[in-house]
């Protein structure tokens, strides 16, 4: 019946591969639908911009780049399927993706097994580039720093700079990025002499934090550490201030968004966060990037867009240096990159495929973000 026809049609379409063209195929896996669609959009925009720019300048070693974009819906199975489709169906051996670690990990397994090279733009879980037993997945890299680093940067800043002695942490139990960052912050904060007076969790879909905030208010911490994405943080900040919680708030790179001040308003003014870069950074790479993104897409780029841009440029740079489309050669070129100037800093990869780069501390002011400090590892 109709079903059988559909199935056969799809199978036929699927089996027939496209003709081989003289292009270099690069793929993108991002959450283009689903609950973190905004992050996927930023990633896709930046990726497309990078590819178009390079193509306009003549491509890589004379060949144009053909971009293949797929959607992982922020779901691990979809991410694995999308990656498999890119590699096996479309023939793209160079993958940028994904955003959430829970998607990047299965994607990395697919890429590693198939001999494709992958750079995750924004996943911070250490296990994206490393196996369970600690061995490195040789083809997998990332463009962002990892949670252990970010957590310790935040803890140090809190203890040394803000002179905070007690802190409470609010984290999303179902999000390994948030949970990981919370755990690393806690470990370093306690190691440095601080005391954690509250460690409360919520779930992704929660919007009412009154119970948790009331509990935290009782504990009266000097700092409230909320390492989640801007949309959750804005809600929490507003409700916290409403309850009269005066603690200084701090968070991670998920705070970076042009929407944060819009949603949170006064509630977030005066709070700090760690980030990959500051859009106030006078470096020409940063200013150029902010301006051209705004011109093309109408709003300022967030951290996810910036990281995706850097990840794509890194992949392209490695392809250029390797002078070949052999994944292994590209992979080697990538591993050997030193001090490559990106928007988010000067990047060198360590033996785990993670970039050695500095973090910045920013503060939200009434008008935007203000640069506070840079921390180098």
């Amino acid at each position, binding site marked *: 019946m109709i079903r059988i026809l559909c199935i056969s049609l799809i199978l036929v379409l699927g089996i027939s591969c496209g003709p081989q063209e003289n292009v270099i195929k690069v793929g993108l896996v991002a959450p283009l639908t689903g609950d973190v669609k905004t992050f996927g959009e930023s990633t896709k925009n930046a990726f497309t911009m990078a590819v178009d720019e390079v193509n306009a300048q003549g491509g890589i070693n004379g060949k144009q780049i053909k971009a293949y974009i797929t959607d992982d819906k922020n779901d691990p199975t979809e991410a694995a399927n999308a990656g498999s489709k890119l590699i096996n169906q479309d023939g793209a051996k160079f993958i940028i993706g994904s955003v959430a670690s829970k998607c990047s990990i299965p994607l990395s397994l697919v890429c590693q097994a198939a001999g494709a090279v992958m750079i995750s733009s924004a996943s911070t879980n250490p296990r994206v580039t490393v196996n369970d037993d600690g061995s490195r997945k040789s083809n997998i890299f990332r463009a962002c720093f990892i949670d252990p680093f970010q957590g310790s940067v935040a803890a140090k800043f809190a203890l040394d700079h803000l002179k905070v002695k007690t802190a409470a942490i609010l984290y999303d139990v179902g999000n390994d990025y948030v949970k990981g960052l919370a755990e690393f912050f806690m470990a370093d904060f306690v190691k440095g002499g601080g005391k954690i007076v509250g460690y409360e*969790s919520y779930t992704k879909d929660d919007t009412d934090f009154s119970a948790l905030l009331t509990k935290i208010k009782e504990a009266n911490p000097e700092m409230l550490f909320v390492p989640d994405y801007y949309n959750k943080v804005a809600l929490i900040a507003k409700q916290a201030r409403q309850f009269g919680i005066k603690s200084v708030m701090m968070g991670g790179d998920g705070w970076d968004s042009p929407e944060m001040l819009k949603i949170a308003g006064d509630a977030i003014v005066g709070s700090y966060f760690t980030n990959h870069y500051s859009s106030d950074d006078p470096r020409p790479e940063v200013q150029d990037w902010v301006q051209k993104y705004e011109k093309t897409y109408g709003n300022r780029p967030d951290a996810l867009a910036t990281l995706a841009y850097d990840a794509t440029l890194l992949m392209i740079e490695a392809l250029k240096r390797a002078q070949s489309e052999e994944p292994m050669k590209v992979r080697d070129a990538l591993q050997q990159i030193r001090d490559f100037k990106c928007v988010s800093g000067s990047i060198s990869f360590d033996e785990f495929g993670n970039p050695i780069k500095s973090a910045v501390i920013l503060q939200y002011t009434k008008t935007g973000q203000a640069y506070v400090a840079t921390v180098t590892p």
Partner: protein
Amino acid sequence: MEYFLQQVVNGLQLGFVYALIALGYTMVYGIIRLINFAHGDVFMIGAYLGYFGIAYFHLPFPIALAFAMFGCGLCGIIIERLAYRPLRRAPRIAALITAIGVSLFLEYFTSLKFIFGPDYLAYPRPFTVTTYQIGGVSFSTIQIIVFSVSILLLVLLTYTIQNTKIGMAMRAVSFDKETASLMGINVDYVISLTFGMGSALAAAGGVLYGIAYPQINPFMGIMPGLKAFVAAVLGGIGNIPGALVGAIIMGLVETMSSAFVSSTLRDAIAFSVLIIVLLFKPTGIMGKMGTEKV
């Protein structure tokens, strides 16, 4: 002690918002035995309509609320007409699956860029928020608005169902559809009206939710919808006061487990409470045991 009372207030606020959504579920189920999975998404549309009313048309709050309620009522009626009425005579599960389809469609369609877009939007508050302290417990304008609007709507709904002719018609149709139509009641009209009213209430819930937890996105309806549905079942699905009771219990259980047990296991505790209640009262707290005719 104040801590406990504060948490009670928090729980009540959540409970009342759930109640507005739960009422829609229970009314629709009472009338056509359908679990309207798309109800949570109607709630979402209501929140967005309120957003547009306040942010774009600069309507004062009560008018924006009415606008959202009216718009969603219309939405509910259209959905019923297109998706559920053709399946009136079909097995119930078919309508349920269709409801799931409508729910998915509403979520993903509105997240398309040219509709509502996937971004999280900040909900404007067209009034000043002041916090009052009564004996160590903080109340804010928001809670006052949530309580007063929900109680007002609940009173209106109860009055309509108990004291008007159309309310009697609704009760009749939910009791026995065929006999009601034999009595001259236009069953189609009553069902459409029920959907409309239920959706309007959900819209009110959506606007209040947006005011209280000021952030909306196309997927915001999934969890509140699920919890409100559980609340309706807890109270006895099809039973209107039951929906209110169930919702308040859900709100309080959630808040209390976060506050006193463990915030991590909060959902697990809430659902365990549900299962335990169902084991002792299989048709919900206020549900009636239907006699099965053999």
